């Protein structure tokens, strides 16, 4: 065997774990926008450019309270993009209550996020909750206007 260490283009372990993140980044699912003026679309916009992380998550809910479509856009590092992409994948097909159960620890575990990137998963959870609460506000407004008009 050769005596000197052969230079290897393979990254050390902590970078390996980020490869799951890279997959989401290379092939992001559900990038895009839904029409935010529609009554069945909830939009959550969380984070701040000054912190280097902004996530916009939109959900479309049908009449039965089930989320049929979700789209996201993110300004942030690879882990933030992966967290929000995963979040949209997970909320699709869930009911509103089930979506509220999604925790940032689950997202972090699925992507094997290192401790320094845990705030990305927290922001993704906040984005889901913000989208759901925006949808709920819209529903209450709709109900109120239906009540006042009738």
């Amino acid at each position, binding site marked *: *065997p*050769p*005596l*000197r260490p*052969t*230079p*290897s*283009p393979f990254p050390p372990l902590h970078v390996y774990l980020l490869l799951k993140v*890279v997959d989401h*980044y290379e092939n*992001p699912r559900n*990038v895009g*926008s839904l029409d935010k003026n529609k009554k069945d679309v909830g939009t959550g*916009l*969380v*984070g*701040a*450019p*000054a*912190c*280097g*992380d*902004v*996530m*916009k998550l939109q959900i479309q809910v049908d009449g039965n309270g089930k989320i049929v479509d979700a789209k996201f*856009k*993110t*300004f*942030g*590092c*690879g*882990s*933030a*993009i992966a967290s929000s992409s995963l979040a949209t994948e997970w909320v699709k097909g869930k009911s509103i209550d089930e979506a509220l159960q999604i925790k940032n620890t689950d997202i972090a575990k699925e992507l094997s996020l290192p401790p*320094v*990137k845990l*705030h990305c998963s*927290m*922001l993704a959870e*906040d984005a889901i909750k*913000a989208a759901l609460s925006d949808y709920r506000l819209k529903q209450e407004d709709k109900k109120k206007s239906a009540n006042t008009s009738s």
Partner: protein
Amino acid sequence: MLSSGRTVSSRLLRPASWLPFRLCPERTAVSSMPKELIKKHELEKDELRPLYMDFQATTPMDPRVLDAMLPYHVNYYGNPHSRTHAYGWESETAMETARKQVADLIGADPREIIFTSGATESNNMAIKGVARFYKAKKRHVITTQTEHKCVLDSCRVLEAEGFTISYLPVQKNGLLDLELLEASIGPETSLVSVMTVNNEIGVKQPIKEIGQICRSKGVFLHTDAAQAVGKIPMSVTDWKIDLMSISGHKIYGPKGVGALYVRRRPRVRLEPLQNGGGQERGLRSGTVPTPLAVGLGAACSIAQKEMEYDEQRVSMLANRLVQKIMSEIPDVILNGDPEQRYSGCVNLSFAYVEGESLLMALKDVALSSGSACTSASLEPSYVLRAIGADEDLAHSSIRFGIGRFTTEEEVDYTAEKCIQQVRRLREMSPLWEMVQEGIDLKSIKWTQH
């Protein structure tokens, strides 16, 4: 050497393919290796490595420097401080030749050069050494906010010892305000430390004028010239510099060696950081590593010969890169003064796109960023903050480093890839979407968490 299938891999970065035959044990012994290792060897040979565009972090060693160093590892291996035999004498001659080569590059006397283990050690020696020597009467040191971490940290240690440090702010273009400097120098000031070329934004400080001011006020000027030596013409006599730090691995020399220039007329006194047998004028004890010193000397003499040619080539490539990128995509900002800079260090901020995601997108180019995600803390680069860049732009910056071995194809490929990926990331960015709709981002109340 290269197969025709490869397009943009840089020849100098391939691990084994260009080394002379006798130095590469794998090539001589392939037939005797077990089958599994042969397969791995074949696979690794075809492995493409990323393009290297990070010349401010470190540089590959010039092959001529390696040629100069090799005999001193295995043949002329004596300790240069051994006075009694030929091995010592030949090492000492080599060390002194190297010293002369370094001195010639900066216009100094060879007796004023001290070999150290790198620019970090030189900076530590200069700042702590000078401050502590003159601490009886002078307890004030001046530096800037954009200095290298080793300078700032040495100053912090001095503060804990009871010195007063002034960290001067810089203007928006990265340059120091000379009137502010003049006003800050007081009767208690012993040292002013300003780096010549900044490693993050490439800005070149007006060291000549600063030298004038310091000399007229009787204050020593120390400059961290690690990124500037061998790239821009420098003269310690014309610029009135009293202390200068030089780094080997930034000028295509070996890693682990540097030098400190300490002026003899008028004499600058230092308290040594490393004590021992009194080598290097008593200021830095320890055996001088002859091969590394020879490498540094060779790198300096090559740099002196090729400085003009390199400078023309590097500016041409840097302009090409910047023009290409800025003409194709909007909202790109060049950080730092556009005129007073070293052209090989290009720091661009791409609005609405985050730095680390762009680095991940450009995974076949080796680059570096001033974004928070790539530093250990969540704070963006302090240099970008000091020049007053908006916080979100500080998160969006990338540093492109161009050097002696960069080719035009590498620059073109990088520019194209960058343009493509920035467009793609902007499609994914909510901020870009909002700006396209005409919303002013500064008017929004963002949620903090």
